[in-house]
């Protein structure tokens, strides 16, 4: 028998990797597969999420994020594989499990013709609790919408709907919070505020899993899984995922962007040339110098190129992993 581990003892004795193995798992998934007719939505998905971790699933629309979240929340059964959430089996122990999960689906699914306050009371009652009992947990979030508590939920702005949905998902003090694309369609300011709110929930030891198509949100998570076509491409801390980029990366800027991309693509030494905002990210087949690239571009009639070596971001690594898989 292993002695129970406390946080302090973990910090002292073990490397981060070992610590990861020994931590209590909020989610353990192995070999999850789900098909819809001919579509393979999830293809042999295995991962685990540590207790009180903020874990992100990052990938485009259609990657399988929502299907996976519906399995985690016991709303859908997998075709194959095992899924344990909070130590409970998603199939046989779903009733007990549901009491401990807060779920915010991608589509706004509160009652539009109930007021803000009525929605919150309704969700508290369904879970056998009261707003008063767990108010502390939502007070920071709810404070933003409390002035509008008599307003119908359907009449709220996007940012306010999102805060109400989060309040309703938290009102029964769940141990696991599941957020399916909470920041999609929300402006950059509200997005940033939302992540700040999630950060504050850490104090309450709530495990949070969150999906997003925004690559730049990875940095807000403890660990992320990059997901594409029903498969997990990589799972790690955002820093390690970026560090996994295997080549030297250069950013190239020119006024004539379209010409620049076409010119870069023609050179056989260049492996990839992808537009990234106001620059183009370039990698070479063999280790090559900036001078070589500059001279080539001048020869091709692009004399204003500014070339810099750069650190790869999450999206660079995602592209690399996608190319490797094909």
């Amino acid at each position, binding site marked *: 028998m292993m002695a129970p581990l406390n946080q302090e003892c973990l910090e002292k004795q073990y490397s981060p990797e070992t610590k990861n193995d020994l931590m209590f798992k909020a989610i353990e998934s192995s070999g999850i597969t789900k098909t819809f007719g001919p579509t393979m939505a999830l293809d042999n998905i295995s991962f685990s999420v540590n207790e009180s971790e903020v874990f992100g699933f990052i*990938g*485009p*629309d*259609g*990657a399988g994020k929502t299907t996976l979240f519906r399995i985690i929340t016991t709303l859908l059964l997998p075709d194959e594989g095992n899924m344990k959430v909070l130590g409970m089996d998603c199939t046989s122990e779903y009733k007990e499990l549901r009491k401990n999960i807060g779920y915010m689906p991608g589509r706004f699914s509160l009652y539009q013709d109930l007021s803000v306050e009525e929605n919150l009371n309704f969700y508290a009652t369904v879970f056998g609790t009261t707003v008063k009992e767990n108010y502390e947990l939502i007070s920071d979030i709810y404070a933003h919408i409390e002035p509008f508590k008599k307003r119908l939920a359907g009449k709220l*702005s*996007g*940012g306010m709907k999102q805060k109400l949905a989060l309040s309703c998902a938290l009102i029964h003090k769940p141990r696991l919070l599941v957020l399916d694309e909470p920041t*999609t*369609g*929300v*402006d*950059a*300011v*509200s*997005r*940033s505020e939302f992540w700040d709110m999630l950060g504050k929930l850490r104090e309450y030891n709530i495990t949070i899993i969150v999906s997003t*198509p*925004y*690559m*730049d949100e990875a940095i807000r998570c403890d660990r992320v899984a990059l997901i*594409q076509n029903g498969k997990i491409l990589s799972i790690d801390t955002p820093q390690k995922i970026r560090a996994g980029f295997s080549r030297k990366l250069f950013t190239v800027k020119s006024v004539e*962007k*379209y*010409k620049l*991309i076409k010119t870069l693509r023609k050179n056989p030494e260049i492996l990839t040339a*992808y*537009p*990234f*905002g*106001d620059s183009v990210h370039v990698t070479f087949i063999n280790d090559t110098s900036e001078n070589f690239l500059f001279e080539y571009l001048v020869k091709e009639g692009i004399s204003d190129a500014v070339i810099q070596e750069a650190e790869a971001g999450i*999206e660079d690594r*995602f*592209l690399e992993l*996608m*190319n490797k898989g094909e």
Partner: protein
Amino acid sequence: MRNQVITVKNLVKKFGSFVANDNLNFDVSAGEIFGFLGANGAGKTTTIRILSGLSKPTSGDVNVAGFDAYRQTEQIKRNIGYMCQKFSLYEDLTVKENIILYGGIYGMNKSLIKERLAELLAKLRFQKYENKMISDLPLGLRQKLAFSVAVLHEPKIVFLDEPTGGVDPITRRQFWEMIYETAASGITVFVTTHYMDEAEYCDRISIMSEGKIVALDSPERLKKQYNAASVEEVFIKIARPN
């Protein structure tokens, strides 16, 4: 000086006592990729409805593709294209049927539609999908087709609403290359988006807040001016005064 395809002078739009657009001034050139940004409720949708001939200004001068936004809204509609990420193509029609339908709506004659259909299928290497339903296409292909359909009638301006939101990183880049190509051919691309990293691809961006344009310049110059590493940082600094 480059040819201006959108000119907006002192544009005001009121709904009752509410001022949705408060004295806007900006121009957009032919072949420019122009990003139109703002927080939810800043007044962007109101402006876009006016620029696309769906709504009339309360006061001010607005000219789109050479037509007046008060009196020539029908001509404006015929000279613009529109694509939004959420809905653009009919899912229960085939690729070919969608192209024929949109060609008809844009008032193109049959032989021209047929010609463009062939060109488009060849360019996108879409021949094998010609008779497939849109609902059977992967999302990335749908997006590319939706964009091609939005410029089928070679409009002066194409409006794109969050064009690459939610698509995978490779498709996203192919999509931006299509946008660059379109802009290089002289069509103005007018982008609205919440994705600030999409804004980084634009030649110039404007940021709206509470009905006013509070910033308008190239992403690079705005980043310098506000001492920010990204457009996102610029946006957070100025889009919400409080």
